Structure formats: C-alpha cells, structure tokens
C-alpha cells in the first residue's frame, strides 16, 4: 500500500493538471476545435456537452482528491 502522503501528492498533481487543462479547453483559443454543433450528444450540441463533460470530470478528480485526503 502506498503511504497517505504519497497518495496526496499524486492526487494533487492530477488535480493541478486536470484543472489547468480544463481552463485551456473551455476558453479561447483552446475551445476552437471543439466549438461545433455536430455531433449532437443525447440531443445536445457538441460544444454544450463539452462543457458538461469537463464538469463531470472535475467531480471525478475532486472525489479522487478527497479520497486521498481522508486516508
């Protein structure tokens, strides 16, 4: 089993990378390749879904971070 302190360091690193990527992916110019209507996902234009996906991903990353901190 890895030590709690190591787990925290890894989790913090992942969170940092994820939220930096999120900031780039949701603003200009990073958003440009994803700023399209098609394909629709569950009836919703792609770029709208793109924002929702990143929020769901954030929920996952924060869960991971929280797990690491409650060990």
């Amino acid at each position, binding site marked *: 089993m890895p030590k709690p302190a190591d787990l925290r360091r890894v989790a913090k690193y992942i969170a940092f990378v994820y939220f930096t990527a999120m900031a780039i992916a949701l603003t*200009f110019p990073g958003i440009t390749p994803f700023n399209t209507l098609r394909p629709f996902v569950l009836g*919703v234009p792609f770029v709208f879904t793109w924002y929702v996906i990143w929020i769901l991903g954030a929920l996952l990353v924060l869960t991971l971070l929280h797990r690491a901190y409650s060990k």
Partner: protein
Amino acid sequence: MSDWRIVVAVVVAYLLVILIVGLRAGSKSTDTVAGYVAGDRGFGTTVMYFMTGATMFSAFAFLGGPGWTFSRGAAAFYILAYGVLGVAPFFALGPWAARLGRKHGYVTQASMLAHRFQSRWVAVVAGVISVIAIAPYVALQMRGAGIVFEQVTDGHVPLAAGAAIAYGVVLLYVWHSGVMGVGWTNVLQGVFMIVVAWTLGLYIPYKLYGGIGPMFEQLEALRPEMLTVPGLDAAGNRWTPGAYTSAILVSAIGVWMWPHLFMKAFAAKDDATLRRTVLLFPTFQLFLFPLFLVGFAGIMYASAPDNADAIMPHIVLTSGLPAVVIGLFCAGALAASMSTGDALVHGAASIAVEDVYSGVRKNTMSQHDKRTLIRWLAVGVGILGYAIALDTKLSLVGILLAAYGAVVQLAPPVYAAFLWKRTTAAGVVAGLLVGITVTGILLVKPEWRPFDLHEGLVGLVANVVTMVLVSLATKPPDRDHVLEWYATSRKEQVTQ
C-alpha cells in the same frame, strides 16, 4: 381572473415556511459575533453543502441564466466554465483559512488579511471593496425577486413591491438569527430549487418541441450562431473571444473572493467538511444545464417578454401549466434569490462592522454591541441594494459580471497571504487601490479596454504588478509573525 391569487397564495405559504425555519434556527447560536457571523463554527456537511450551493446559485442562475441563453445564446456557457474552475483552489485554501480562523478568531477574510499583514488599513480597504462589490449583487437578487412577482401577478404586484416583500422576510430572519437563519433556510431552499430547475428544464423542451434533440435541430436550422461560443453580445452582434475568455477568468479568480463565500471557511466544523463541500460543488454547477435548456427553448417561443431575464417565468406562465405548479416555480425562483441575498446582506454588514468600522475606530465595542450594529447595517445594505435594484437597466448576469471586476481585486492579497512571505501591507493597500481604480475607469470607458478584455482582468494585472513592486520597495514584514502564520495554516488537524 382568480388564477394569480392561487399563485400568490402558494408563494405566501412558502415565504411563511422560510420565515419560521429561519427564525427558529437562531435559538441555537450564542450571543457573540462568532455565533452570529460564523455559526459558532459548527456546521456539518449537509448544511454546508446546501448553504454553499444555495448561496452560489441565485437569481443570477435561476433567472439570469435562462435570460442570457435566450438573448445571447452560448455566451451563457461562460457560467458553466468558471464555477468549477474557480472553486478548485479552495480545496487547499479553504482548510488553510479555516485553521487560521479557529486559532485567531477571524470571521471575515478582511480581518484575516489585516492580521497577516499587521495593518488595519488592509482590512479597511479590503472591507470597502467588498461592500462596493456586494451592493450590486444584492440589487440583482432583489430585482430577480421583483421580476418573479411582477410576471406572475401580471403586474398586479409591481417589481418594486415584490422585491420589498421578499426582502422584508429575509431581513426579519437575518436580523433574528444571523448565519444560523441563513444556513437552515438554505437547506430547504437549495433542495427546492434543484427540484424545480430539473423538472422545468426537462419538461419545457418536451412540451414545446417534442424533446431536447428536436429543439436543438430546429435551432440549428434557424439560429446556429446562438449555439456556439462566444455567442452574442448585449446588442445581438457576435461577442468577442477576448471578452468571453476574460469573463471566465475574472469570474473564476473572483468567485471565492466573494466575502459571503470565503466566510464559509470560518463557519465549517472541520477541514473534512470544507473539502466535502468543494468536492460536491460540481453537482450544483450541473444544475445550470436544465436552466439553459429553458433559455434555448425561449428563442423560438411564440412570444417574448419585454425583459430577457423574465423568459423563464414568461414561459412557465404562458405554456398552460396549472396555477399550483406556477406557484411552486415562483417559490423556487424566490428561493434562489433570497438564499443568496440573505448571505450577502449578512456578509456585507459583518464586514462593515468587523473590518471597516473596527479598523477606523479603535476596537472598543462589546460583542453584544457589535452584533446589534451588524443587524442595523444589514438593514442599511438591504435599503442600498433596493435603491440600485429599482434604478438599473443591466441584465441580471451583466450586473454580476460587472461586480466581479471589484471583487476579483481581493484575489492578489488573499493568494499572496498564503504563498508569498515577502508581501507587505503597503504593497497590498497600493495594489488594491490601483486595481480598483483601473477597473473603475475601464468600466466607464469600455472603448479603452485592450482586446475587449473584461475591465476587472486589466485591473487585476495592474493590482498584482503594483503589489509586487511596492512590497519589494518597502521594509520586509516581521519574519517570526509570517512564519508562525504559515505554520498554522499548513498544520493538519489531529482529529479527522
């Protein structure tokens, strides 16, 4: 027409329930400033979660969100982006601030900064900027409540009277119960508005267009420019990428600088509670999704309200829903407005007393007298917000985006307090003053903004540069004090 009377009856019943819950909550806190402002630092996860979520999501999201989607299309997606991005740093910062709060007894972020930088002028300047930012935010909430009353009663209750009724209730329970009233009413209002938002967001596209997919297919043929970012500006032309991106950045950096949100760090029971609140935050952000669907549904709707922010109540009222359902919707919208408005009024008054008043005049007041003064100032902030609410021509989202320009100026001192030991009080005060001045000038002179960037972002850069240069040019702070402060913030709690 008797229908609007049923609606009003449902709304009045709801307001009474909120009032009773809010008033009863106050009997649990002690007669001190910590009891009134930080709930004796004893909130668990459930209350903290709904308190934070309900505080964050307000008339801004509930009416302004659909309003922007309806009038400006995908421009509203900026709100989806900034919430989660802005909250993430609080996972670390929140517990640091909370530990310091427990040890040194802070109840506001300005008092924390004043202690860190050993200067009460830091508290005074930060406190004044906080109150400047909060006043339009309160006004936005009141306008939201007023819009709901006006739309639903078909003008029988005008905007001004509706806002006054809703905020009369808010002031009553804030007066009586302080943050305890805010916490317990928000649990109720948080649950209520989530249910209302999802129900309407899924039902309205289905009822009007046969589903979410068919709705977007029709929109794609008719108004494709509304469906991709950056959407449209207030005049209906394409918004610029610079304005869109800087709106996200300013809001993301500024969001936890809102004193009423930052102060939650001082109200949480322990670090774990605070972290769980941050963790669950994206679930509140998802609640914008159905609200935006309602806004998109409004674009092709047969009729349009005079005011884009009224699109949500407008559709609810004209699509043939039963009066009781309409009443419940209104209560949900009021919940959104009031659950943020109460925390804002309470937060602004606490700052005015704790930081500005106590900073300017030497602190000689008793806890009881302070508590009384906070109450009177809460009424004062309410009246000020009301005056702005009746006057403004901006959209609900537009009001908040402008207020962010002021609140984001608090970010450099807060981050510097935790991360840069060399920061001095003179640097902080100079940075804040330069930042707020630049932002103010560009707010009045939008044509001077480089690349159409948000005025707050330009002010922020000026703020940081000034803070660093002045700090380096002035005498370094007392090393022992700073190290002790750092050690306290980084120390894990033993009991977790």
